[in-house]
């Protein structure tokens, strides 16, 4: 808030400015949890090919990722 408002007085109380951010985090957390109920049964990873055999093996993507 101090970014937008500046007072020419002092307050006797301490203002907790983290409140909005925490609320936002809670909303995001809720949204993430809620959406996770709609997801699939296995992940998808973009542009990483079809099969990765490991650090020593060649990745067997049919094509290189673009």
């Amino acid at each position, binding site marked *: 808030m101090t970014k937008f408002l500046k007072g020419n007085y002092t307050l006797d109380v301490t203002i907790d400015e983290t409140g909005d951010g925490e609320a936002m985090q809670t909303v995001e957390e809720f949204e993430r949890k809620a*959406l996770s109920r709609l*997801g699939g049964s*296995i992940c998808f990873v973009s542009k990483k090919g079809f099969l990765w055999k490991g650090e020593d093996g060649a990745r067997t993507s049919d*094509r290189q990722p673009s």
Partner: protein
Amino acid sequence: MELGRQIASRLKEATFERVVAAGLSNAEINGPRIQRSVLELSRLRLGAGDSAIVVGAGPSLHRRRSLERLRASGYAGTVVAVDGALGACLRAGVVPHVVVSVDPHRERIVRWFGDPALSAAPADDYFRRQEMDPAHAADELSANRALLRLVDAHGASIRVAVATSAAPEVVARCAAAGMELFWWNPMYDDYDRSESVSLRLHRANGLPCLNGGGNVGTAAWVIAHAVLEKRRVALLGIDFSYPPGTPYERTQYYPELRALFGDRFAEAYVSLEHPVLKERWFCDPAYWWFRDVFLEMAREAECRTVNCTEGGILFGDPIELAPLEDFLADVRAGADVTPSERT
């Protein structure tokens, strides 16, 4: 953008959130059972020629009598089925070379193999509610008993491409039925990142990581072309959607959508007209995401993908649409399938 597509655009991260904890927990429990890698499947002779048919559990599978037609054709190529289609396959006399299982759910998935512990109809209406396998909807207990017998009878000739995320109950059931298990890790995230879950899992068990595309049907297609190296892959029962007129209450994510959106839940569904059938099919956000991902992956694959589902929403470049018989005729002739929309 409509609500369903908005949600779909966020399901990549949401799926990670949904499956990673359960998948890793199951991987740890499954650890002692892991003996063979899915890569060994490519060295086995599983079906003739360079073609494969991937069997999903979508509603077109029984609506189009796809398995009965496949059985009647005497197709000699490779059949890869998802776990949810195993019962339908066996009832139709089609014994798949490979069955794919990935879902970490501890209670539900074992039912696709026959659950030895099921003694009463469960409160969970997952199987009764949906059209994936109508045999389960009619009488869950007798369907389960029949499936137990069928899987026990054919288990020894079926290989399971099983993800380390699969429920230990599924693994135990497959082993008890005499099925050979071939393991792989789901690709959870970018293995090139130092904090990657996929990288950590691979270092722990040495197994390859397979990009599953959000669902077991897509994972089965990946196994068909990237592991078994088939160059012509047909799809059956891969609808990624519900036929026109299906009540919302009978769709997979209905309880979740209702809980999240209340009376506005219907806005989360997406519909699309099939270009040949001219029917308007509809889907959950998850299935829309599966479709988008499949199309993206298919553009990277060297195999030709011919969707013989004869329904659903999976169409668009580079996927070809054709009736099953056309694909089978072209396989017999040794010719490539002509790109068409001949459903």
